[in-house]
């Protein structure tokens, strides 16, 4: 039963056929979720006698009643019958055209041990070869590697991001293996939340990186889930849509596979792990399921085999794995559930996965985060609290704190400056004192020196006087001596004569 041929186009045909011929019969909208509104918490609404909500729009003191027939409850919506072709049946096409021009984003997270076949399965699913080097087993911890690819099929552009857990299950101590994964998922939600809370935001341009589907690869032991698997899945189930799959399913025999699957599912149920429920309430999907003859729930987890190599089977090439004992065909439903996985993941439920991520997981994250930050919807007096008011209050608080801190810092600064000033003054005084002391000492010394100089001069004078006196005496003595010798000489000369 080639499910490949049926698929998307069949869905559209069925929906069109089901819709035609009902232009006059109005289907009550209560079945769909769109008109259900929670009791409105708004300002002045009151039911008048006819049971219609009335809003009072107050402008400049005048109460201008705006009588609106829509509101809570479906009893007010009147279904009109059209007497001709208006033309808004092209609305879905307009919507689709808009979305096509913007492109789609789809992000898959693959969680599984190294070597379990994650990259190969991605290659097989999307029929292409993504650039991938096989990871080693020596990673010190789990890290996530995200890679984005742009795929185009006819006029649909898909921005596909595949996130791989590198090093999962390789460590000896695997207590913290789940933490990087949870952090990554939270980081993507946080980025989206930040963008949404910005004042000037551009959500229609935003590259959505939130994980839409998590493929959890279960090792084909044939017995049961490992405790690491249970723990990780339990941590992830409230944050992301988990689709468990059994990898390398060609190592398990048919009968063992059935037991293995039921064991896994019962373990998941008993541990309270919420995996992604494929929607079965839509008529179109139910019909697909009817053609598959069993609902996809029974087949979970899908046992898949991935392969990018082609082997000649019959007279055409097909993706398969060749063994000495036979060939495992990837797209053969009897051999493995790959076709079902591809059908469920891409062709039928891609949009639902994205929607679940946005409306359930992201909203949960947002609620928790905002409550953590302290925002509430109603305060203890049960008056409606607006986010703005809380934000204002927080902002004022924060500003007040900032101001206080500023004051403190300023005071501290002033104090320090004063201290420094005092110190400097002290130092200055000391310096002055020293200077005075030095000056005085210098003067004293100078005086001493002067005194000494005077003394010296006196002594020198005395000495000079003495010297002069001595010289005089000497010269007198010399003169006397010279006269004496002259006399002697004369005497001598006289005698000789």
């Amino acid at each position, binding site marked *: 039963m080639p499910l490949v041929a049926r698929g998307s186009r069949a869905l559209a045909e069925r929906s069109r056929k089901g819709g035609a011929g009902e232009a006059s019969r109005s289907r009550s909208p209560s079945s769909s979720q769109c008109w259900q509104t929670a009791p409105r918490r708004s300002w002045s609404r009151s039911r008048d006698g006819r049971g219609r909500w009335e809003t009072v729009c107050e402008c400049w003191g005048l109460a201008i009643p705006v009588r609106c*027939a829509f509101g809570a409850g479906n009893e007010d919506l009147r279904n009109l019958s059209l007497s001709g072709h208006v033309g808004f049946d092209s609305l879905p096409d307009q919507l689709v055209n808009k979305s096509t021009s913007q492109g789609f984003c789809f992000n898959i997270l693959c969680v599984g041990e190294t070597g379990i076949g994650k990259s190969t399965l991605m290659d097989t699913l999307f029929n292409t070869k993504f650039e991938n080097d096989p990871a080693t087993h020596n990673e010190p911890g789990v890290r996530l590697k995200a890679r984005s690819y742009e795929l185009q099929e006819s006029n649909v552009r898909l921005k596909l991001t595949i996130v791989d857990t590198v090093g999962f299950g390789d460590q000896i101590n695997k207590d913290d293996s789940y933490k990087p994964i949870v952090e990554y998922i939270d980081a993507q939600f946080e980025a989206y939340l930040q963008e949404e809370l910005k004042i000037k935001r551009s959500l229609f*341009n935003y590259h959505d990186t939130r994980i839409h589907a998590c493929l959890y690869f279960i090792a084909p032991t044939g017995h049961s889930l490992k405790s690491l698997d249970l723990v990780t899945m339990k941590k992830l189930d409230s944050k992301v849509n988990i689709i468990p799959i059994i990898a390398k399913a060609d190592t398990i025999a048919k009968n063992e596979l059935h037991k293995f699957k039921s064991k896994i599912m019962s373990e998941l149920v008993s541990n309270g792990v919420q995996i992604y429920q494929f929607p079965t309430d839509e008529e179109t999907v139910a019909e697909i399921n009817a053609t598959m003859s069993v609902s996809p729930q029974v087949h979970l987890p899908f046992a898949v085999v991935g392969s990018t190599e082609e082997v000649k089977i019959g007279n055409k090439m097909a993706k398969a794995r060749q063994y000495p004992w036979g060939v495992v065909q990837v797209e053969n439903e009897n051999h493995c559930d790959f076709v079902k996985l591809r059908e469920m993941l891409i062709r039928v439920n891609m949009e639902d996965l994205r929607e679940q991520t946005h409306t359930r997981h992201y909203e949960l994250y947002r609620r928790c985060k905002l*409550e953590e930050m302290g925002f509430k919807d109603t305060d203890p007096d049960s008056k409606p609290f607006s986010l703005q008011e809380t934000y204002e209050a927080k902002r004022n608080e924060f500003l007040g704190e900032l101001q206080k801190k500023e004051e403190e810092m300023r005071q501290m600064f002033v104090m320090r400056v004063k201290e420094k000033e005092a110190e400097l003054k002290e130092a200055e005084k000391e310096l002055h004192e020293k200077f005075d002391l030095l000056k005085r000492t210098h003067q004293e010394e100078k005086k001493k020196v002067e005194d000494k100089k005077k003394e010296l001069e006196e002594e020198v004078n005395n000495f000079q006087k003495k010297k002069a006196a001595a010289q005089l005496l000497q010269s007198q003595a010399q003169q006397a001596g010279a006269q004496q010798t002259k006399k002697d000489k004369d005497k001598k000369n006289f005698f000789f004569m």
Partner: protein
Amino acid sequence: MDPLRQPPSPCSPRPSSPRTQSCEMLGYVGIEAVLDQLKIKAMKMGFEFNIMVVGQSGLGKSTMVNTLFKSKMWKSTLPGLGVPTPKTLQLQSVTHVIEEKGVKLKLTVTDTPGFGDQINNDKCWDPILGYINEQYERYLQEEILITRQRHIPDTRVHCCVYFVPPTGHCLRPLDIEFLQRLCQTVNVVPVIARADSLTIEEREAFRRRIQHNLRTHCIEVYPQKCFDEDINDRILNSKIRERIPFAVVGADREHLVNGRCVLGRKTKWGIIEVENMAHCEFPLLRDLLIRTHLQDLKDITHNIHYENYRVFRLNKSHVLPRGPGWVNLAPGPAPSPASPQATPRTMKVCRWTQDNSDDEC
């Protein structure tokens, strides 16, 4: 959609990250099935469309709405039958769910009887602006709740059809004032009402004069030139802009013409067929509003007008009071309705601007 799309221009809304590689797929994967999934989801959820008709009484607004949606939305009021003209402007909304070929549309039509009917029409646009802003406010309040609803009910006015009386001369001061204010908050489509009182030549001359007036006063009516995304849009929209304002005639009675049953107005000198392009331009209006640009109207309202409002509101929220009185955006008489509108003009968020610092359109 032509597969040979232009490569992303700087104006395109598709950001390309440097890490993205383009990959060739070797076989059919089935990604295009997502389009059908989208369609199914949209049809299951249904669509919402809110339209507002503004104009003086007697211009045929209710009849026009009935003709557009081919059903008795309103009881068309005939003058002189004891229905008094309201003394003040009152806004009346009516909601219907219409279905065609499996597509459900929740249509809300807001009428404004009493607009421009008083002797002193000063500030008659304020209640309308207040109503539009109230819808934005309601949506904003729902959006910022902690526990949000799965699908926020959209009551914002997506399109405002403004009826210009067929004087044949040019836009009146009231029209100009109103259009100037409203074009910054909502998508406005001006139409020449009761166009069967003008001949074809008069119609063309009137249209040229109105276009000239709009250009002189810098009024950007839908489809706005600055929101054209790519060359295809621009070509299509310039064709539409050539014909704005459409000269329309509304009728909800059927008459027999040449053996066919057509909607038309029967007069002594002939039957004016509403859907005949030679007689009036109603098909253009219908196609613009419903068949081709409905989603675009909603998108521009959501992405541009609502975001502008949100920016203004979040920036100025410490100034505005809360509760029902918040609508009173006028602190004083003179610049009041202009101030929330004047500032968004400079703060307009363009579709293709990605950084948050620049605010030029």
